[in-house]
């Protein structure tokens, strides 16, 4: 039951071969059975089963929406009314949200079930899920390895069959990198496609929400339910939402795949490259054409990002002051000390590091050298893509330079950790949609992700390419050893 696609599950639900209550119960049992993965921060079984029973009544009335009755795991960054929304941080470890994020609201309107809230790097700052206040998540393919981050809990949950689908957010790779490490499909839509309302803000000009699923087809279904204009998000784009499933199987012959040489250079693991090249050969066999493109400023994406994201974060995270919600320190003499101690005790090491970088980059005397310089580079990086997309339809490469690394391997070296996102960050800087899909296994049995970047708002093209590979291969159907039954 836990390896079925959303399409199969929704058919079973609509034909009443299966009830949402049974389905929800099944996943709750699996979550409990595999709790050593630490994929969830909160599971409220009673609430989930209540929602499942309500979904069953709607199914019984014959008025279901496409995803009615499907249990979904949500990254603990989405505000969920009446439930803990911790964002993986001590400072929000007592925050029961008074409202729903638009992402949650839209899925609840379809009567999907909130299966639980998934573990994540604190405030989505991390690439390994090791910065969570609630402890690291294990990779279901090898529990000594990280699941990636920051949506590590969501990726591990889908990979291990603890949820049929999950939500995530991606600021520099936080959907795609864990999807790659855990062998699932992870899709970051264009900036402005999915509402950010009620999603705890990290870097507002880069953050975007999206699905983690077992296939591109499932990603299309979840995107369909969550995309669209939201007046509550000032950066939401008022454009019609196309039918994402309509073009999944479209012919790709004659379409051009751009391969930036910068994505196949130094630092790329040989096994990862081999798997990616095999996927590219598959596309060639389907009639697509491979061509070289140039993204000359690629190497500067990471430094540029590590100015912009911490700068925006230092501003966004100034709201956590122990006054209106969240944790407040016990002992203080005055207001300033209350702020400083609340934040010192409430934030973990990586979050403090980024607040410090951002505060420095924005401070008087350094603004031009860091923040403004990075914004200029951001334009050059976006222009690189604009030129490349004049020649090709999509850009492909590896999602990450290596497969999942071991727990603790990079925790003492922030820069080595940051370099994990070297291929994913550019899509956030340019606001472009990008997906990671499972493309094979490396020699050590770990999943490898293929990264597909598309033109702004061209989600259908990306999903089309991803689905075509999944029609001809079964990498996305593989489960980690020990999680097949």
């Amino acid at each position: 039951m836990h390896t079925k696609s959303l399409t199969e599950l929704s058919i079973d639900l609509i034909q009443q071969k299966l009830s949402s209550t049974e389905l929800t119960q099944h996943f709750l049992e699996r979550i409990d059975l595999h709790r050593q993965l630490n994929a969830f921060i909160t599971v409220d079984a009673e609430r989930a089963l209540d929602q499942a029973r309500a979904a069953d009544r709607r199914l019984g009335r014959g008025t279901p929406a496409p995803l009615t009755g499907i249990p979904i795991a949500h990254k603990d960054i989405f505000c969920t009314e009446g439930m803990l929304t911790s964002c993986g941080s001590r400072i929000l470890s007592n925050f029961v949200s008074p409202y729903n994020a638009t992402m949650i609201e839209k899925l609840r309107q379809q009567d999907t079930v909130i299966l639980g809230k998934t573990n994540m790097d604190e405030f989505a700052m991390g690439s390994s899920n090791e910065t969570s206040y609630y402890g690291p998540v294990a990779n279901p393919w090898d529990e000594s390895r990280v699941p990636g981050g920051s949506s590590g809990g969501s990726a591990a949950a889908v990979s291990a069959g603890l949820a049929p689908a999950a939500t995530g957010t991606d600021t520099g790779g936080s959907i795609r990198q864990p999807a790659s490490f855990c062998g699932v499909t992870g899709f970051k839509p264009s900036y402005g496609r999915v509402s950010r309302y009620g999603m705890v803000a990290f870097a507002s000009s880069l953050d975007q929400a999206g699905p983690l699923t077992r296939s591109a087809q499932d990603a299309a279904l979840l995107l369909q339910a969550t995309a669209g204009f939201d007046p509550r998000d000032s950066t939401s784009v008022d454009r019609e939402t196309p039918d994402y499933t309509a073009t999944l199987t479209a012919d790709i012959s004659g379409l051009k795949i751009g391969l930036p040489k910068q994505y196949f250079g130094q630092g790329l693991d040989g096994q990862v490259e081999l798997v990616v090249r095999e996927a590219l050969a598959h596309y060639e066999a389907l009639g697509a054409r491979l061509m070289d493109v140039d993204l000359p400023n690629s190497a500067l994406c990471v430094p540029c990002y590590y100015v912009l994201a911490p700068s925006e974060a230092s501003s966004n995270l100034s709201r956590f002051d122990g006054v209106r919600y969240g944790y407040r320190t016990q002992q203080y003499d005055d207001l300033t000390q209350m702020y400083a101690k609340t934040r010192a005790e409430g934030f973990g090491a990586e979050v403090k590091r980024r607040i410090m970088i951002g505060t420095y980059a924005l401070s008087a005397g350094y603004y031009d050298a860091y923040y403004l310089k990075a914004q200029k580079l951001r334009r050059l990086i976006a222009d690189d893509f604009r030129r490349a997309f004049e020649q090709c339809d999509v850009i492909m490469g590896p999602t990450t330079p290596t497969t999942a690394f071991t727990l603790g391997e990079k925790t003492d070296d922030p820069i080595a950790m940051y370099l994990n996102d070297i291929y994913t960050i550019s899509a956030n800087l340019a606001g472009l949609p990008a997906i990671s899909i499972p493309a094979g296994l490396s020699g050590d049995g770990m999943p490898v992700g293929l990264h597909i970047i598309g033109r702004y708002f061209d989600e259908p093209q990306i999903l089309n390419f991803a689905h075509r590979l999944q029609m001809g291969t079964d990498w996305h159907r593989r489960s980690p050893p020990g999680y097949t039954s």
Partner: protein
Amino acid sequence: MALDHQTVREIAELAHLELDDSEIDQHADELSRILGFIEQMNQVDTTGVEPLAHPHDGRLRLRDDQVTESDQRASFQRIAPATEAGLYLVPRVIE
């Protein structure tokens, strides 16, 4: 770019983060390394390039100035660390 302890203390003060001496040491070291890495940006000449703040390039939508939210003070204050008579309580700032 190596950051001295005094600069790190000043940043921490601006950021409202209480750091002890060992943390100041650690941050001075880590931030210096990260800034050194960030300075790779200087390899590219950006003279005359317009800064890009946002994927929408500054074209942000405006809405009419109308009240659209209802009063939810009670539910918002229920999760506050300290309130009284509808107000948020903080240590006294005016004697």
